[in-house]
Each structure stands twice: as structure tokens, then as C-alpha cells.
């Protein structure tokens, strides 16, 4: 089975639809969404309703901090993110808002764990961006492979034979076998707002028969996505950063 893993879509319809088309061409059999479907971008309803639709066809989705922030306190967000959430809350239709409110923080699927951020305290939205936070997250689950998002930069961590943690920046398009005798944590990167100075949308495919994890980059119509953010009156920084990939 080929699982397409997508997270941090952030209301970016252009990036999301480009990734869905790409994954379908790659023969993805299942979609797993790793949270943060809204915030920052201008198409929250389209994105959330598309995900809701896919879940009725077997897709899996967990909640991210932006999804949980709708209608709740958001004191921990920066000004632009907070504004985007206010705006999103005002735009979101009822079915979309209800869908977001039902999403769980974690889902276990065979030997895999899906979570938006760190798995040890999933509601605290801790970034998994270096070996120590990866170790904490891996220590909190018995699942062999954890897939998460939140950081917006693709990264791979593995527990070695002597319980050390290795880290690796996966190259787009090059499959990495997640050796069965070890445990792994993959940060899949962001569909809607990549931050590794590469503007192309990031997602990943995991092949359960070969245990191969492949990080992927998909160029999309950044200009249109940024134009919609400006037209919606959202902060300019949220539009400008898309073409810079940061």
C-alpha cells in the first residue's frame, strides 16, 4: 500500500490540489492528513471540505494546532497567525468547522502513528526539529514509525541499534528504506507553506510493502495562492513568504 502523507496545508488550495494530483499519479492508495489544514491561506472551506470528503472515502486525518485554535484561545500564536485564525473562523462554514472539531490528536494504524507534532504531549504542539525532541516523541509510542508535521521542513529521524538517534534531511524523490529492525520518525514537510527556502509544496509517500519513505516536492501556482491571500486582506507577510519558501 502506498500512503500519501500531507500536512500543514494551511488553506492553500493551489498547493493542496497540486499535491493530490501528484499523489494520484504516483499511485497513492490512501491519504493521511497530519493536521493544520487552516490558517495563513485564503481557501479554508475548500481545503477542509475536500479533506472531509476524502475521509469518507477512507482517508485518515488528525488535528493540528491551527485546526484546534478555531474558536478557542490562541494566545500562543504570533500576530499574523492569530489574525489569520480570526479571519478563518469568520469564513469557515458550519460543516467545515464541525469537521475540524471532531478530529483526534493521534491515530494508530498498524505499526504507524500519525500525529501533528510531538507524540509525548500531542496537545502541547512541541516542534520535532532535532534529535532530542525526536527522541522524546519516539519514547512516547510503541509504534514502529511515526509520521508528523508542524515543522514545515522535511526531516527523518531513526533510532540506531544502540538507541542513539540519527537525523537525516531526505532528498526529494530519493526513497529511504525505513529498516524494519529500527524505529523511525518522519517529519513530512508542509504542503501549503514550506519553510526550507524551496517554494514547492512538500509531502511524502510511504510504501508499506518496501518500507520506503519518499519525500516529494511539487511546484504549484504560488502567484495565485499569494494573490488570494492579499485579496482577502490577510497580512502581506503571509503572501510574500510563499514564493520565498520561508
Amino acid at each position, binding site marked *: 500500500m502506498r500512503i500519501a502523507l500531507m500536512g500543514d496545508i494551511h488553506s492553500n488550495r493551489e498547493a493542496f490540489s497540486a499535491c493530490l494530483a501528484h499523489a494520484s499519479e504516483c499511485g497513492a492508495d490512501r491519504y493521511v492528513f497530519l493536521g493544520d489544514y487552516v490558517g495563513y491561506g485564503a481557501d479554508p472551506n475548500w481545503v477542509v471540505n475536500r479533506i472531509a470528503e476524502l475521509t469518507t472515502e477512507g482517508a485518515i486525518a488528525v488535528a493540528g494546532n491551527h485546526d484546534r485554535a478555531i474558536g478557542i484561545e490562541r494566545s500562543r500564536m504570533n500576530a499574523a497567525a492569530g489574525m489569520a485564525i480570526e479571519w478563518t473562523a469568520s469564513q469557515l462554514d458550519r460543516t467545515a468547522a464541525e469537521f475540524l472539531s471532531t478530529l483526534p490528536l493521534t491515530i494508530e494504524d498498524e505499526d504507524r502513528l500519525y500525529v501533528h507534532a510531538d507524540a509525548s504531549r500531542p496537545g502541547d504542539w512541541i516542534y520535532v526539529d532535532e534529535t532530542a525532541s525526536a527522541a522524546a516523541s519516539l519514547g512516547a509510542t510503541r509504534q514502529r514509525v511515526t509520521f508528523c508535521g508542524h515543522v514545515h521542513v522535511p526531516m527523518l529521524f531513526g533510532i540506531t541499534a544502540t538507541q542513539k538517534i540519527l*537525523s537525516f534531511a531526505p532528498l526529494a524523490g530519493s526513497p529511504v*528504506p525505513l529498516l524494519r529492525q529500527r524505529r523511525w520518525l518522519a517529519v513530512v514537510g508542509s504542503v501549503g507553506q514550506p519553510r526550507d527556502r524551496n517554494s514547492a509544496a512538500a509531502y511524502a509517500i510511504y510504501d508499506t510493502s518496501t518500507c520506503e519513505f519518499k519525500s516529494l516536492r511539487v511546484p504549484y501556482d504560488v502567484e495565485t495562492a499569494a494573490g488570494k491571500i492579499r485579496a482577502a486582506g490577510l497580512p502581506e507577510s503571509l503572501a510574500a513568504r510563499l514564493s520565498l519558501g520561508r
Partner: protein
Amino acid sequence: MSARPRSRPAIGDEIDGFRVLNCLHVGGMATLWTVERSGSPARYLMKVPRLGEGEDPAAIVSFEMEQMIMPRLSGPHVPKFIAAGDFEVLPYIVMDLVEGVPLSQRLAQLPLRPDEVARIGSQIAIALDDVHRQQVVHLDVKPGNILLCPSGEVVLVDFGLSTHAALPDLMEEEFRLPYGSAPYMAPEQVLGERRDPASDLFALGAVMYHLATDRTPFGDPQRMAGLRRRLWRDPVPPRQLDPDFPPWLQDTILRCLSVDPAERHPTAAQLAFDLSHPQQSVSGDRATKMHADGPFAVFRRRLAAPKSKPPRRSNAVSIASPAPILAVAVDLDEGSATIAASMRMQVARILRTMPQARLACLNVLKIARLTIDTALDDESRNKHVQRLVGLRHWAAELQLDPSRVTFHVLEATAPADAILEYIAANRVDHVILGARAKSIRKSLLGSVSAAVAAQAPCTVTIARSRGTYED
């Protein structure tokens, strides 16, 4: 994780469809077995790591690396991957049984003649170039891992210490001490750098030194302090051991053994080129020196030697080589002057943007048929020399450092075939040749440039000069 895996098979065992025939080798990290698959006469090699109590933990990790890397390698210079076994049952790799003799079996015949060292060395360099282009650094180049095939080609085996640019390096994360073979290991590898293909060139230099002198350039130190010594102590030059040792080969070997990876050949392909074109290699101080450096120079280097891993070189592993071999096929006919000038401009541009690129200038001397005594024929010898002079004249305007450019007159009945053969044999990355815009000769004989463009395994640039109609 679950049941303890078995540590080794037994003769007669049937494992995932492979029947174990006999044990070939028991090594420190793995055992090797001949196996066959039912219904097929082919024999394969099965490698099984030693995972029992008290075995080196590196054996597991090294085997994991090899299991990841081998399926990603292909081509004539590596054993073909057939299958891999699950770690939880019996970990193994099955690969083609290579018909070849390990170079280690020739160690009893050392020293080898310099031309034999250069021939074997260039074949190893070609194999390394092939592996490097597949994003892999071998990191354990030594006589035992180099198989000499009946065809003269080399197959590299044992990728247990290797790294792949697109895969995590399990060895680096796991172990503080460097893994490799002490007599041949590059100084940066001693310090823990595992991503630089130049480390393989150093090891090849040490292997060639060993073959040529019957001694290893840095002994066989067993401790870190002894391994580090190669950061400052240069080896005894081969010419000190044998004053008749060819200066060009000493120069090439000592360049491989440079402490700074940036001072070695930029690519294995360029090293192979030097080893197969000895007469054109430039000779200097390194080529002729008869003694190792004095105590003062060594002491200075020792003080300056890095204590830890130096910053990684930016071009350490890259698929598109920043140091390509260019070939330019120059037509020396008077009528082709404008095209020749246009080609020179193209070449100058490429060489300017890639300072490590090197250039081979070719001219094809067309002969009616191949005769056995061509070399003895004065007239053809004069023609040959005249063409060489013409090529040098064509290149003079480029004002290249002599170490970056070589000149070759190819005598052939079919020019396109000669150029294509040269490209293949010398791992040329980019060939530049000219084409007349419109030519009667072309329509009668078929175009050389079209044939090369259609068949060359590399980038091809065809230079034309707009508006010139010749013939």
C-alpha cells in the same frame, strides 16, 4: 525485536528459495556462501552478517548499510543485487557471483611493473567513478575488495562501510571511531568525514603505492594516534625506493595521497584519464622528489593538523560533476576556420565556468584502411605530428594551464566511431564538435556530428557558424 535471528546458515539449507551449496569465506563481519536457486543453473553469492554474542556491533550496522545501498547500485563495476533477507528471520544479501580474482591475491607478486600498476589503477579509478556517479562513496578501497575480472575490468565489492548521498549514514551516527582499513584510509576519514569521494582516491593512491613498492605508505597502524600520523607525515616517495620509478606515476600516486582532499584529482574519471595517458602528464617537484619532506616541514604540518573533522567540502558528492572531462573534436581544414573559432569560444566559456574541468583536444586522421605497420610509415608519422601541431595551435589562444589540456590524434577509418570510442573509454562528460551548415560531403558520407550526437553517452554540443556555406 522479536525472535532472535539465526546467525548463519548451514550447507544444504533452503532459504527463501536459495539452496546453500558451500561456504566460501568466514570474515570478521560476515560469512560468504555459494547458493543456487531451484530451476536455474546460475550460482549466486550469499553474504550473511555475524550477529552472535560478542560479535562486533558494527557488523549489524554495516550490514544494514549494505542492504540499503546494494539494491541502488548497478552497472559492470559492482556485483548485481539479487535479493535481501528479513532481519528478523535471517539477514542476508544475495548477489551475482563475480568471476574475478581479488587484487589481494597478487600481493605475493609485488612489486608490480609501473605500467601494470597504472593499468590496474586506471581500471579501479573507472570503477570508482561509476560508483561515485551513483552517489556512493566506498570508503573501504583495499586489495581484498577489488576484483580483477578476465576482461581486465574491475568490480568493487563490500559496501558495508559505504555511504549513499540520498540515504542516512547509520555508521556515522553509531560509532565514534573511524571504520576502514588502516593502511589505505584517507586522513579525513580518520577524522570522521564519511561523505567525500576524494577519500576513495586517497585509498586508491595507497593501493597503487603498495602495488608499486611492496610496502604500504603509512604502515598498518592499529591505534588512533598511529592513524592520525598520516595527517602530517608524508610517505617515502617511490623514487627513493627505486630511482627508475617513472616520475609521472609518482606524481599521480602522491597527488592521490595529498592530505587535503581538494588537492587530489577532482574526480576519479580525471585520475583514470591521467593513469591512461602517462606521456601527457605534467612533471614537477612532486614527480621527481627522491626523499620525504624534512623534519621542519613535517613538524609545521603536525602543528597545523586539524584535531577534528574539517568542514565538509561543498562539492563532496554531486551527481553533475563540477570537474567534467571535455573533449573537443577539431577539424583542422582551412575551410573550417570559422567553425573552429566558434568552437574555441564555446570551449573557453565552459572552461571559465568550471575551473576544474579538463580538456582533451581530438583530431581524427582518416586512413584508408588499418595497416599493421602504420607506425613505421614515415609519411603517416609526419601527418600525425603535423595534426598534433595543428591542435596545439588551435588551443594556444585558450591559454590553458598545461595540466588541464591534452592532445590526441586518432587514426581511424570511421571518424564518428573513433570519437565515440574515445568518449566511452575516457569517461568524457561533454563533447564539442563542429558541423558545416550545408555540405555536399555530408550528404554523401553522412555527418560525423549527427552520428556522435545520436550515439554519444554524454552531453554533445554542435557548433555551427551561421551563414557559412562550404563545399
